[in-house]
């Protein structure tokens, strides 16, 4: 089998990054930064998820097809969120329409 064997040090490095990410999220959440709170927490969460997917889940060394399939999942999720929210967020914008 031709699976890529990543060095242990890389796994420990990713682990460290994930732990630091968690610390940063908790720390930032202590302060009221308005909408920036959500942006920071979600950016850190996305970065952490990306590290797990790329390295722990070996997508970094997987075939193009795996990249496309994994990416499509998140792409469809984005479609779900964006189209649903475009409805909820725009309700009542046009006078006389359903709220």
């Amino acid at each position, binding site marked *: *089998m031709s699976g890529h064997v990543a060095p242990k040090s890389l796994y420990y490095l990713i682990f460290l990054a994930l732990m630091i990410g968690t610390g940063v999220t908790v720390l930032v959440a202590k*302060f009221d930064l308005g909408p920036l709170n959500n942006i920071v927490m979600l950016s850190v*969460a996305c970065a952490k998820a990306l590290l797990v997917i790329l390295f722990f*889940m070996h997508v970094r060394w997987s075939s193009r097809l795996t990249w496309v399939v994994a990416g499509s999942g998140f792409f469809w999720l984005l479609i779900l969120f964006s189209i649903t929210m475009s409805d*909820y967020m725009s309700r009542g914008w046009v006078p006389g329409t359903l709220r």
Partner: protein
Amino acid sequence: MLDRHAEHFPGPIHQPPLVANVDAIQPGVHAEHAYHPRLQHHFDDMEQQVEASTLGMWVFLVTEIMFFGGLFMAYLVYRWASPTGFQEASNHLNVTWGAVNTAVLICSSLTMALGVRAAQTSAPARTQVGWIVATMVLGAAFLGVKVIEYTDKFTHHLVPGPNFVWEGQYPAAAEIFYSLYFCMTGLHALHMIIGLGIMTVIAIMAWRGQFDSTYYTPVEVSGLYWHFVDIVWIFLFPLLYLIGYHYH
């Protein structure tokens, strides 16, 4: 290649006969017969087989993304409807337990990755089982913390239903928040329990010495599942526990 298929075609089990040492077979003359005992008859070679398994697991994980995605969508809609109510409700979750559980799950992802690596590098069965059992212990610790948290919610009347009591400003939003909290963390915990079951099987297989550098697909694919469950928690933790943290 055709030979191999013909040889085994009508057999009820698609398991090729054991080849003691694949490398020992002289190259050239019978090279086309030198296949791995773990190779199923419908694949050309091990590489194609592992590619199919990995891809299959990823397709399953995409359906899982959409499964959890529906709950995240519900969360987004209701949080959009009452952002302050959600912050107030979130404030009653224990950030320390949530953070501890996040750390526990990240540790379990590390031990899982190292377990897969142990199989990849043909480490002794003891080492492979060690990492998998470590992963299971951490997974169980996560569930233990979840039990403490759920018990706390029950004693404080924070479980949605007739006994739900909320003394804050937004009782309706709080009840919706706790409904989502139990649905999302509950579904996640269910995945953890299933994960523990999978890891039990994998640990037994590893103990029997079934994995080495030439064949470790079951560990690899179960690892993908475990890491996915970790990713779900990576999003659940800030969205549920931290949105009202600065009120403290």
